[in-house]
């Protein structure tokens, strides 16, 4: 079984964006100019090299996630091209309430429910899988117990309020810290192993749930 890693940038109070949807205050907001220090960049590139499948929400796809990293991947002189290439090459699975055709390369809309799709993907051979959100998908992945590792890139900023990936999850969740590292640019990378086991649907379940 390969792992599903959920990787997100957050504020110190673990919001993925502030109440206006802005991430101003993050050291780096995914602009072409990569403002992290060298060591954090290397860490990030290693993470991208460990995966070959990206899960994302329809909203993120619609907002241009796939096209954006495709364009960065083409900028050979840009250090960010080193990880953008990995995202570009990876298979993308897009989750949407309405089923549709994808016009992006190497990207497909999930045709089955989240649980079935992820279980099948996990059972396939390959490198690790990664999810970036949006926040709704991230929350759903945590809630359903499919996240094996949570990688938080905690920025040196307090938003006070905003969009959380933890608020109002149905139950309490013990997690296991596997790594904590502070970087010169002010970002702290926290890696947690999630200890919840998935709410796997019964194999013979043929009801109309979902």
């Amino acid at each position: 079984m390969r792992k599903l890693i959920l990787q997100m940038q957050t504020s110190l109070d673990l919001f993925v964006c502030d109440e206006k949807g802005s991430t101003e205050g993050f050291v780096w907001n995914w602009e072409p100019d990569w403002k992290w220090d060298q060591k954090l960049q290397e860490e990030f590139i290693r993470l991208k090299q460990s995966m070959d499948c990206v899960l994302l929400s329809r909203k993120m796809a619609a907002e241009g996630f796939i096209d954006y990293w495709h364009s960065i991947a083409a900028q050979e002189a840009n250090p960010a091209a080193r990880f953008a290439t990995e995202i570009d090459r990876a298979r993308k699975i897009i989750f949407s309430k309405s089923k549709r055709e994808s016009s992006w390369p190497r990207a497909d809309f999930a045709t089955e429910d989240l649980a079935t799709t992820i279980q099948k993907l996990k059972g396939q051979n390959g490198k690790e899988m990664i999810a970036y959100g949006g926040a709704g998908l991230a929350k759903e992945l945590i809630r359903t117990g499919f996240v094996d590792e949570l990688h938080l890139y905690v920025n040196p900023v307090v938003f006070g309020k905003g969009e959380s990936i933890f608020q109002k999850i149905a139950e309490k969740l013990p997690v296991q810290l596997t790594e904590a590292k502070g970087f010169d640019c002010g970002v702290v990378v926290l890696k947690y192993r999630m200890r919840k086991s998935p709410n796997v649907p019964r194999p013979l379940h043929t009801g109309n749930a979902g």
Partner: protein
Amino acid sequence: MGTLVAFEWLSLDGVFEADSMADWFFPYDSPGRRRTILETYQRADALLMGRTTYEMLAPSWSSMADDEMDGLAGVLTHTPKHIASDGPAIADWGQTTTFGGDAVPEVQKLKDDGGTLMLIGSGALATTLAQAGLVDEYILLVQPFVMGTGRRFIGEEMQTALELVQVTQLDQGQLWLHYRVKRG
């Protein structure tokens, strides 16, 4: 000019309420955490608490011998304590002074005396002081547990940019995060 440090114990998602500590705090007790807590308190020249935190801590900690809880009891007892409360001190717990009214000028005066003033717990007081720009540093002891719901230490009014000072990983997966508030 002294430094005001807020030292807070939190779940990963920032919950700090005492009622649910059996979930998010007590299970992660360890020699490393106890030592870290002791060493953090030892940085303080004086402690600062709101009334609720004080009334929660005073009865039990004031009745302990100095060597209890790996020596933490003694450190808490012998470090001067300033309590934001209109009432008198409720326990004989070392050097304790109370002040009522607006906390901002009172804490400003305490800071002017110099040294490290350490705020513990006290969410409401922390919010007031953070809003007034009096909090200089945050030391957060983060437990590997997600509560999902519950009262969180960092509130809406505490929005600020920070500088990372130090990150330490403790033996049961607890984190010790030290930040300085970025000015200007």
